[in-house]
């Protein structure tokens, strides 16, 4: 299967959408009455947070498919989706922390359920790679990683519900009412930014899949040429086909 197909127009569309999103953020969206300029981090922080969570869920869905079909390609898809989502989740934590410092005066706010839930989810998914790395047998590694991805995927919404109940609610109620509790031009900017980050996720995912597939093909060709003299593949957390 070729993941490189359509990658170029997709990448161009992503670049275009992200540029448009940033243009809207800086030149179109109004300044927030309370927070001023710093509120604009919202257009980065919330989209990457949402896309990271969707990426974790997608990893869980691919994992279910992997367990059902035993096709190692689904495991690779799950691995790549979770991998990119972890990076985005780290970005969400950093931007959230910056925003918290600017608007609430502290780098870390324990009363903030979204930030705390995100930290817990991040800590859980941070175990994904060590877990894979500590299982040598590739088939078992894929199976166990899928079980983990499914459990963690179910854990994400439960964790958000539990932590939100525990803490006083001080997070900005952005979507309290339909259409957003914010003015229309802010909401439009947010939607474009969300689309841009979503496209970025899909592009990176396809790019990584194409790169991995090329590596596997190259390795297979080398093995055919060199025979058994080839050095063995080093132990790794990444799936191999």
């Amino acid at each position, binding site marked *: 299967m070729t993941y490189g197909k359509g990658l170029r127009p997709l990448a161009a569309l992503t670049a275009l959408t992200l540029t448009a999103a940033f243009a809207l953020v800086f030149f179109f969206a109004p300044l927030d009455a309370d927070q001023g300029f710093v509120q604009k981090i919202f257009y980065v922080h919330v989209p990457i947070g949402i896309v990271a969570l969707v990426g974790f869920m997608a990893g869980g869905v691919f994992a279910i498919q992997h367990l059902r079909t035993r096709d190692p390609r689904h495991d690779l898809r799950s691995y790549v989706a979770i991998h990119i989502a972890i990076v985005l989740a780290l970005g969400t934590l950093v931007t959230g922390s910056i925003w918290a410092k600017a608007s609430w005066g502290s780098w870390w706010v324990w009363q903030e359920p979204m930030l705390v839930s995100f930290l817990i989810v991040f800590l859980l998914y941070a175990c994904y790679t*060590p877990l894979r790395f500590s299982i040598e047998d590739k088939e078992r590694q894929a199976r*166990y990683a899928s*079980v983990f991805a499914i*459990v963690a995927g179910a854990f994400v919404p*439960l964790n958000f519900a*539990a932590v939100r*109940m525990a803490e006083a609610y001080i997070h900005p109620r952005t979507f309290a009412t339909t259409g957003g509790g914010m003015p229309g031009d802010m909401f439009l900017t947010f939607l474009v930014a969300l689309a841009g980050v979503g496209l970025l996720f899909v592009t990176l995912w396809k790019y990584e899949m194409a790169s991995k597939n090329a590596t596997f093909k190259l390795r297979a060709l080398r093995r055919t040429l060199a025979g058994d003299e080839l050095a063995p593949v080093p132990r790794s957390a990444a799936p191999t086909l």
Partner: protein
Amino acid sequence: MRRAVGALLRKDLLVELRTKEAVPAMALFSISTFVVFHFGLDRSSLDGSLAAGVLWVTLLFAAVLGINRLFVAEVEQGGFDGFLLAPVDRTSLLVAKALALLAFLVLVQLIAIPAFAFLLLGPSLWQALPELLAVLALADIGLAVIGTLVSAIAIRTRARDLIVPILLLPLLIPVVLAAAQATAPLLALDGAGPLPGRWLAILAIYDGVFGLLAYAIFDFLLED
């Protein structure tokens, strides 16, 4: 399946009774942790949310010890091979192990909670015992289900003792959070407050979701 679960559970309890490997260590660990908390916090009596937090963190860490050991005999002495050869439903191993872990947790708590009341707790334990038992029961089910699942995942990895805690702690944060929040008003200094029902609901939902999930995917951890 009921007969298989019964046989496996009896085997596990019998092994524990003869080797006394997990429960005494877990109980001793909890009491040592209470002493550590006494010095760490420099407090001689606790109440309210601090007492609930100390109690639940201690019980959680004690559970980690038992969860680390849960499948060790199965791997080291060929229990898995014997089980896989037997013509029984594979999920019965999950049910039996979770019940065994639940029994260990209850035994440990029978020692640890009186010790906590004796060593650290300011208000009387009797003021809210039935409510506390309800919280304990729901939290223990969650601990047992997730513990069995994580133990089964970690047992075949190279860094078993390291994988269990790093996987288990984030997964159990909702349980500890809900249990501690539900326990805090029960241990208040000025008489037990009412039991917040929504925390019990969170615990029950957690138990239900992960119980069903574990039931659905446990098979995949056994195919070798």
